[in-house]
């Protein structure tokens, strides 16, 4: 084992991680910064973001309005100080992206163009055709790699955080190319490892979005906040789950049930297809449950109809969607409807962090989808996530850079490192049981889809919890078929499943406890929002017997909870 030392180690090279790296060097170009990522940075999930990034860029729009939209979208569970700060910082980020070279779509007079998006009452989604995240990522990566002081560890898999006296001292990671584990010493660590949607079977997310950082933070005592809130996107392509961007509806697409009806008029007569995601997904799920969906070889589906937009507009504004529908769904949206249904799409919950992205552990920061600040509350608005990654990725970089200025490296905890080596190599890779990792993973995913999906019930969640715990036991008895050292993807799949099982458990426990319906969390047995009791954030702490829940009030600055109607 070799030891690596860097002032700041960033885990994750998606939008949040890369933005943090650039922000940190910009604060202090003497700092030695490392970015560790289990994927090459450009393979990060962020490249999949399509529709846009929200920011107030016009006089007719206002911070107040963006903040209000976000708070309302969040079903009042967002911390409003975070929201207000966020909306003010977002425009700066859009301009930064432009300065790094992001090819933003433009208005005829040369400004960055904006389009409407669900839940936003002004067209404030800046976009680069329908490949927004892709272009932001390439712009950021291009910028980040222009600094010599940012060292990239591509295809290094972080396995654990090292914490002493409630202060971060480093982490352990495996160099996938060699299969060797190494210890990183750091004065500050920023976690930017993305969401955990792969705990579900039907999801829009990349295969690699397995919530590793959330689980690592949880295991060293950082609470996971609001994990019961998982967003379901209304338009996952059947059968792969690949996202058909909300932009498709933003550009005028219809949702139809099997009767050819634009059923959204019964659920959100004003906003129709552009109502917030939770509203649209629930409407679809109701149509499915009540038998008004289409039936196909891959189960029930709803039709997303773009045909009336015409070939020219589809090619100009939604080229990727057309390509994806043809290549992955076998349908050409110019001629046919696209079969879709709701898919797990965003994790509002995550590593508890404050407005400065600080976690309760000194020197440990969290940004991007893995974190919960809480900006999105019970439901995120489309295009607020990439914006969050940029705004709070930058904050994390800046804060960490300031923090390390007065700090020195700490002694590395050799016992913990040895224990981690034992866990990873002996207990996971070396396990000689009979359980197959992919089979266990699929069981977990099916279970989460069946019992912790859009509509939830106490008894379902209770049985889900039992089953997840059963799966956790069975995990101890796995066998990784591939025993090789170099680039052992069977081994990393096992490590990821181990992380995901913890996260599935936290998600179910948090959902079971919250006996109300709010935002993306819909309890059929508790269909009403209950501000009296539940205007609070869930904090799940790791214990050996499973998560222990605590609650914390929501920060309210301006907007008192009111009924949420669209």
């Amino acid at each position: 084992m070799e030891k690596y030392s860097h002032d700041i180690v960033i885990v994750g090279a998606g939008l949040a991680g890369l933005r943090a790296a650039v922000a940190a060097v910009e604060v202090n170009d003497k700092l030695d910064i490392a970015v560790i990522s289990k994927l090459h940075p450009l393979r990060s999930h962020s490249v999949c973001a399509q529709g846009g990034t929200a920011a107030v860029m016009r006089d007719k729009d206002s911070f107040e309005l963006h903040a209000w939209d976000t708070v309302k979208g969040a079903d009042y569970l967002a911390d409003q100080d975070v929201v207000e700060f966020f909306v003010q910082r977002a425009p700066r980020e859009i301009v930064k992206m432009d300065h790094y070279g992001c090819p933003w779509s433009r208005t005829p007079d040369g400004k960055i163009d904006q389009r409407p998006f669900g839940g936003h009452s002004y067209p404030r989604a800046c976009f680069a055709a329908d490949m927004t995240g892709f272009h932001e990522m390439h712009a950021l990566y291009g910028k980040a790699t222009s600094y010599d002081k940012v060292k990239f560890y591509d295809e290094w898999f972080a396995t654990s955080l090292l914490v002493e006296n409630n202060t971060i001292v480093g982490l352990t990671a495996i160099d996938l190319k060699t299969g060797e584990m190494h210890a990183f010493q750091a004065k500050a660590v920023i976690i930017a490892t993305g969401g955990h949607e792969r705990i579900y079977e039907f999801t829009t997310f990349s295969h690699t979005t397995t919530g590793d950082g959330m689980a690592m933070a949880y295991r060293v005592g950082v609470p996971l906040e609001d994990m019961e809130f998982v967003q379901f996107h209304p338009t996952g392509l059947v059968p792969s789950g690949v996202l058909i961007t909300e932009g498709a509806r933003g550009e005028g697409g219809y949702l139809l049930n099997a009767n050819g009806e634009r059923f959204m008029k019964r659920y959100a007569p004003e906003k129709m297809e552009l109502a917030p995601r939770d509203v649209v997904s629930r409407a679809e799920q109701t149509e499915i449950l009540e038998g008004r969906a289409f039936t196909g070889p891959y189960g029930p589906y709803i039709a997303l109809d773009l045909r009336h937009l015409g070939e020219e507009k589809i090619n100009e504004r939604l080229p990727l969607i057309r390509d994806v529908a043809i290549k992955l769904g076998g349908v050409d949206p110019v001629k046919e409807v696209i079969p879709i249904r709701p898919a797990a799409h965003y994790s509002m919950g995550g590593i508890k962090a404050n407005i400065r992205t600080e976690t309760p552990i000194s020197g440990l920061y969290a940004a991007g989808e893995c974190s919960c600040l809480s900006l999105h509350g019970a439901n995120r608005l489309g295009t607020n996530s990439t914006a969050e990654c940029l705004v709070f990725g930058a904050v994390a970089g800046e804060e960490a850079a300031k923090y390390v200025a007065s700090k020195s490296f700490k002694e590395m905890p050799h016992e913990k490192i040895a224990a981690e080596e034992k866990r990873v190599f002996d207990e996971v890779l070396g396990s000689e049981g009979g359980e197959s990792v992919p089979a266990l993973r699929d069981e977990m995913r099916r279970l989460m889809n069946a019992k912790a999906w859009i509509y939830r019930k106490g008894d379902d969640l209770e049985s889900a919890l039992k089953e997840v715990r059963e799966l956790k036991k069975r995990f101890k008895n796995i066998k990784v078929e591939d025993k090789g050292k170099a680039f052992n993807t069977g081994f990393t799949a096992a490590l990821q499943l181990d992380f995901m099982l913890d996260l599935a458990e936290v998600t179910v426990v948090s959902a079971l406890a919250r006996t109300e319906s709010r935002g993306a969390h819909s309890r059929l047995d508790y269909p009403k929002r209950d501000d009296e009791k539940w205007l609070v954030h869930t904090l799940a702490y790791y214990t050996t017997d499973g998560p222990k829940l605590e609650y914390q009030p929501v920060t309210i600055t301006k907007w008192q909870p009111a009924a949420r109607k669209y």
Partner: protein
Amino acid sequence: MNGEVLKVVEFKIRRYDPDEKKHYMSTYKVPIRKGTTVLDALNYIKENLDGTLTFRHSCRMGICGSCAVNINGKPMLACYTQVLDLNADSLTVEPLSNMPLIKDLVVDIQPFFQNFRKIKTTLIKPAEAFRRENEFPQSPEELKKFWDLTLCTKCAVCYSACPAAIDEKFLGPSALTANYRFIADSRDEGLEERLKPMTDNVWLCTSCNSCTLFCPKLVNCSDSVIEDRSLIVEMGAIPRTVKDVLESVMKYHNPMGTHQNKRMEWAKDLNVKTFPNVTKADVLYFVCCSTAYDIRNREIAKTMALVFGKLGVDYATLGEEEWCCGDHILRMGEKGLFEMLAEHNIEMFRKFNADKIVTLSPHCYNTFKNDKPYKDLGLNVQHYTEFLAEALENGKIKLSKPLNRRVAYHDPCFLGKRNRIYDAPRQILQSINGLELVEMKRTRESSFCCGGGAGRVWTEEAEQEKRPCVNRVKEALELGVDAIAVACPFCVTTLEDAMKVLDVENKIAVKDILELLKETL
């Protein structure tokens, strides 16, 4: 995923075990349904049949660039390829080329990404410009100038397919395109800085078009490299070898540096009609500088004349008025010179009344068909292999003598990849009695360039092992053939050079199809 199993496809996968340093093949049978992608199939194998199979993947939606592999010799994204679309019962899946192997289908992508570190992948402007608090204005039209080039996912498909990339000095199609993407961006002001890292290696590109052909996002890398070169030419930062070629064309109207009055020397014993003595014929025979001047290649020109004669075709050449077609020159980035050549040739085409033009070289063929201003004329042009294949089919040529040779056909890029003429040359070879036609491992669309395109035939300076022609001849040697058949004078030159370099001239020869044909007449 459920749905009906439509067929079972055999996957033959090239494996590498780095711990044991062992190369081997594994074969699996995979049930295929509508919608099953190659990545789905690989995942099916890993999760059900063999947990040790190793490959990269992430987004499964064609945007992250992780899962590129070679499928039946062609690089593509596994997640973006429907198995049913490949129309095959058996598929061979191999790792990408030109990068070191790590394990199974996983290659080390660092050399590819290293190239992006040599260029600047962010806007270049004076520092104070970045203090501006809002965006740099850019009109939709300005955006359009480089938008298509921003779609590159850095999946390394182009790098894997690139013959020039066997020399690690070459930045590769993707990085060169990324560089041009910034040059073409109206917000960028770094032109000079951007040209520097390219000047010593951009010339290695042969314009074979593999990068563009296989790009999953249809990014035109090949043309971007030409744009890069054209700016370098404008700046005058070109190596001696390139300069010599351009000067020679400027002065003599051919890259061989010989006077135009020697152009018809190849035909001195033959009775070939030429412009301006004749101003009309059924066929205008466009000979090509290489076949007209190069002593070795003159045989090819003569044979064509002989065949025209045997067929009783009314043909003529432009004689001394045939100027270099300019294909190489355009691709070396000398657009002005190309235009001058094209204008002259077009004027001659106007003066000379021909029903059709037949070219010996795929390069002349290509530029007449695909490059403005020639393209705008809608010329009726055929490559000689098309012309001959037609004649054979109509029974107009009789091949009397058998030819007992084992021959591999090398697809010239400008005939195959650029113009999809794969069958005509094979038809001719197959009609030769006794000739055994062997396919090269890299064939048709996946053919490996000889290294002669875009002027490199005259400017080659790479170390011997890093020359595409050497690589290609080695591939042919493995087949145990006694000749490589080609249908392009530049392939003749480069491959013959490689044979000299490898000292295998007594084992294997390069022959233009016309030369083989001659032996059977």
